[in-house]
C-alpha cells in the first residue's frame, strides 16, 4: 500500500482506479468496463444508470468483490481488495458489504427473521446479538408481524424489504443494490423508495444500479454509463428546490 493512502475513516469508502473488465477472448472479447475511476464518500448515495449491457452490474460486482477485474484496482475502506485471496475476499464481503439483488435471493427454507440474522452470524456476531439486530431491522422495514413467515408467504415488495434488512444485518460499510425495484409494482416500489430514503438520511453509504429514474432521483449523485464507461455525472440537491408549484405551473 502506498504511504499516501488516507486512513479508512476519512478517505472514500469505495475507490476504483483504471478499472477494466473483459469477458471472452480474441474476436469474441467483450470489454464490459473500460478505465473506470470512481470514488464514493462515506454517507453518499450513488445511483448508476445506463442501458442494458453498459457495464453497470459488472461495476457493482467488482465493487463488492463478487468478481475480479481484468485490470485496475478496487479499494474498500482504504484497503485494496482486488488482489486478495478467495478466502480474504469472502471475509471482506461478509464483514463490509451488504448486497440487495433484483431477484431478492432469500433462502426459501428460512423464515424472514432467520434470513435477516444470517449475515450477522456469518460476520461473527453472537447468536443473541444477531437475533436482536434482525428483530430491530425487521421492525425498521415494517415487517415485525411477518418475522416467522417463509419468503414464499410474502409479497414481492415484502421480500425485497426483508432483503434490504438482511443487507444491513452485518452493519456493512456500504450497501450495493442491483435493480432493487426491478421486479416490483408501483406501490411496492414506493415502499422500497421510502426505505432507501430513510437509509440515506441515516447516513448509510449506498450504491444503487438501476433502470428506475425514481430510484436514481433519490440519490445524492447520479452517474450515467454507456459501453463500459462513465459518460455523465450529476449531483442532485436534497435541500429545498425551487417552489414545488413550478412542477405544475397552474398559472403558466
Amino acid at each position, binding site marked *: 500500500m502506498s504511504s499516501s493512502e488516507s486512513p479508512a475513516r476519512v478517505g472514500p469508502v469505495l475507490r476504483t482506479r483504471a478499472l477494466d473488465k473483459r469477458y471472452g477472448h480474441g474476436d469474441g472479447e467483450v470489454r464490459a468496463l473500460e478505465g473506470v475511476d470512481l470514488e464514493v464518500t462515506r454517507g453518499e448515495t450513488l445511483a448508476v444508470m445506463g*442501458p442494458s449491457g453498459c457495464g453497470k452490474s459488472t461495476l457493482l460486482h467488482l465493487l463488492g468483490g463478487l468478481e475480479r477485474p481484468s485490470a485496475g484496482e478496487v479499494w474498500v475502506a482504504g484497503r485494496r481488495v482486488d488482489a486478495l485471496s478467495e478466502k480474504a475476499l469472502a471475509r471482506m464481503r461478509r464483514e463490509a458489504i451488504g448486497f440487495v439483488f433484483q431477484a431478492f435471493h432469500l433462502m426459501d427454507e428460512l423464515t424472514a427473521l432467520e434470513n435477516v440474522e444470517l449475515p450477522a452470524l456469518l460476520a461473527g456476531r453472537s447468536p443473541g446479538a444477531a437475533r436482536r439486530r434482525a428483530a430491530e431491522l425487521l421492525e425498521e422495514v415494517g415487517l415485525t408481524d411477518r418475522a416467522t413467515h417463509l419468503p414464499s408467504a410474502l409479497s414481492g415488495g415484502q421480500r425485497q424489504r426483508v432483503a434490504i434488512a438482511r443487507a444491513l444485518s452485518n452493519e456493512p460499510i456500504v450497501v450495493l443494490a442491483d435493480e432493487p425495484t426491478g421486479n416490483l409494482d408501483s406501490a411496492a416500489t*414506493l415502499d422500497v*423508495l*421510502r426505505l432507501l*430514503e430513510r437509509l440515506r438520511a441515516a447516513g448509510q453509504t449506498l450504491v444503487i444500479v438501476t433502470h428506475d*429514474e*425514481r430510484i*436514481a*432521483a*433519490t440519490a445524492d449523485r*447520479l452517474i*450515467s454509463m*454507456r459501453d463500459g464507461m462513465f*459518460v*455523465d455525472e*450529476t449531483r*442532485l*440537491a*436534497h435541500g429545498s*428546490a*425551487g*417552489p*414545488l*408549484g*413550478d*412542477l*405544475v*405551473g*397552474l*398559472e*403558466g
Partner: protein
Amino acid sequence: MLVPEAVGVSGKEPSHGYQLRVVQEVLLALLAGEASHGYDLRARVQLALGPLADALNAGHVYVTLNRLEKAGLVTSERVGQADRPDRKVYELTEPGRARVNEWLADTSWPKPAPAEFHLKLVAAAAAGLGDPVRLIDGQRHALLAELAAAQRAALAEPDGSVAALLLEGVVLRLQADLRWLEACAQYWTSTKERS
C-alpha cells in the same frame, strides 16, 4: 345557447392559456354545488394541490372571480359579517353552468413537450451549434432535479392523500420524459460515432 368564451385566453401560448383556463373552470365547477366565497374556494383548490399549492397565486383566485363575473358566468352578492368586512359570495349563472358542463366533457390535454426539444437537437447538430449529447445531458439534469423534488414531496404525503395522486402524475410524466431523453442520447451518440 351561446356560451361566452372564457376570458384571458391567449391563442399564442396554448399551454399558458390552458393552465389559466383551468383555474377559471375549477372555480366555476366548485361553485356548481353551492354558492361560496373567494377564501373558501382558494382553500379547496389549495387542499387538492397539497405541497404544490404554491402554484396558485392567492390573489389570482380573486382576480379570476372578478373576470368571471364580468363575463356573466357568476354573480356576486355582498354578505355582511360580524366583526369583519363584508365578503362577496359568488353564485354560478346558467351560462356558467353550461361552461362547466362543456369543460367536464372536454378531452383536450396538454401537449407533450418533445417536439420543441427534438427540433432543437436536430437544428443544433445541423448548424454545428453544439453537441446534441451535451444538450441532452443538460436537459436530463434539469428534469432529474424536478423528479427528485416531486419524488420527495410524494414520499412525504400521508397515506390516502389526494395531492399524492397529483404528485404521482408529475413523477410519471417526468419519468417518461427521462426515458425519451435516454433514447435521444443513444441516437445522437451513435450518429456522432458514424460521422
